[in-house]
């Protein structure tokens, strides 16, 4: 295993985040703005919602956009010939994919921190204290795997980064509407159970409600883990077979 190369690629991705304004906006500023706006507008009890109830959805909302950034990143690097060039080095494709997964897990953790800090700033007070954030990290990091996988699937079927941006909404919108903070009816919940983000929101809601011993958290985490691993494996296989040309 070439750890030196793997770490170098993680660093590049993090530099990309800082040096490319569009990436920085989508991954960190967008969730921050969203948290403040949604928190202020929908967090008001007069709107029939509560900031304490929408924070899990806001965290997931931020993480869903990793689909778009991953798809854009891979299709840009493919268009610029970088993926081909990297494939001529001794770096293996599993080391390369590993670097992408690690980077996006780090980004997801950073997103949790941003949303959490801003949410506390505008009145979020989780039951059982802020300790729940430490449980939120691994759950959201696992969920980010599915976003990377869906991003890879998007990049596989998209010829350009622009097309990838559009197609990514095929995966973003269902998760946004059925698995964030938009209230579900009995009917829409029937759909939501097929959406990975639904389980993340359910687990985070229980954690932030202070119900840490609820067995559903473990069940949700199990579903997220299995689904995310399956999606990322499918994404990697599809991209390597059809998307890397």
């Amino acid at each position, binding site marked *: 295993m070439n750890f030196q190369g793997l770490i170098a690629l993680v660093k590049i991705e993090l530099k990309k985040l800082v040096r490319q304004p569009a990436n920085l906006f989508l991954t960190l500023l967008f969730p921050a703005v969203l948290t403040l706006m949604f928190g202020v507008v929908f967090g008001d009890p007069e709107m029939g919602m509560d900031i304490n109830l929408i924070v899990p959805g806001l965290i997931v909302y931020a993480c869903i956009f990793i689909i778009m950034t991953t798809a854009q990143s891979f299709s840009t690097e493919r268009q610029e*010939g970088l993926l081909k060039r990297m494939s001529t080095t001794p770096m293996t494709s599993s080391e390369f994919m590993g670097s992408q997964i690690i980077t996006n897990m780090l980004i997801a953790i950073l997103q949790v921190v941003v949303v959490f800090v801003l949410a506390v700033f505008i009145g979020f007070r989780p039951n059982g204290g802020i300790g729940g954030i430490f449980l939120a990290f691994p759950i959201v990091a696992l969920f980010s795997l599915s976003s990377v996988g869906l991003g890879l699937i998007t990049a596989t079927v998209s010829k350009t980064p622009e097309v990838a941006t559009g197609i990514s909404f095929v995966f973003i919108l269902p998760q946004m509407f059925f698995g964030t903070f938009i209230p579900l009816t009995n009917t829409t919940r029937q759909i939501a159970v097929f959406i990975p983000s639904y389980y993340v929101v359910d687990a985070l809601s229980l954690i932030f409600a202070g119900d840490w011993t609820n067995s559903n958290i473990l069940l949700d985490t199990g579903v997220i883990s299995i689904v995310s691993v399956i999606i990322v494996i499918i994404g990697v296989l599809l991209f390597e077979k059809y998307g890397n040309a």
Partner: protein
Amino acid sequence: MSAESRRKDDTAIIIKDLVKQFEDVTAVDGLNLEIKQGELFSLLGPNGAGKTTTINILCGILKPTKGTAFVGGYDVRKNLKEIRALIGVCPQQAAVFKFLNARENIEVFGHLHAIPKKELRERTDTLLGLLDLAKVGNKKASGYSGGMLRRLNLIVALISDPTIAFLDEPTVGMDPRARRETWEFIGSLKNQGKTIILTTHYIEEAEALSDRVGIIDYGKLIELGTPKELMEKHEAKNLEEVFLKITGRRILEGL
């Protein structure tokens, strides 16, 4: 013949009955070729002749449809890991990270080759100096001119100090002065004992640099020899005329 025994002779690359087909198009059509160690070999031909496809097969980006090739004694169908440790590839498109500066770009690719940090820093400094990018080494590649990007592209290919370097149209987009300087630099690589496979459609480039030239058209090798031999054989003033006499077309027509 084992990989070890092949390495002992003086052949760096062996291409055997190589065919690459893309649906209806045969990009490489039964190519046979041997390139010696330490040789600067140019593949000359018009756009679409099959030069880049051949290089892409040799460095493992594409799989051959039929036939095979050995790079440094290793089979491109079986031993890509070993081949990748030997080669440096300068692609036709300047494939560098635009949001990184030159130094960062070079070092990233050095890390992918697992070069020790101190050695990597020294090589980076040397190559930046040799290709006249030392002063702009800390400037983001997005602010580089086309010629500067081409030079950075070449440095990235050479950071691993490869035994065999594939340079695919390395001077496209350079101004005449930068092109001449780069030719000198490429010539100096040969003096270091590296095997260089150059694809070009610049006649002067092939004539100035090559030990031998393989003229390729429609995926077939149509002529092979030193520039002097080819010009004498076809009673031509330059390689362009050689190509014209063989095919009835000019190399640059397709551009």
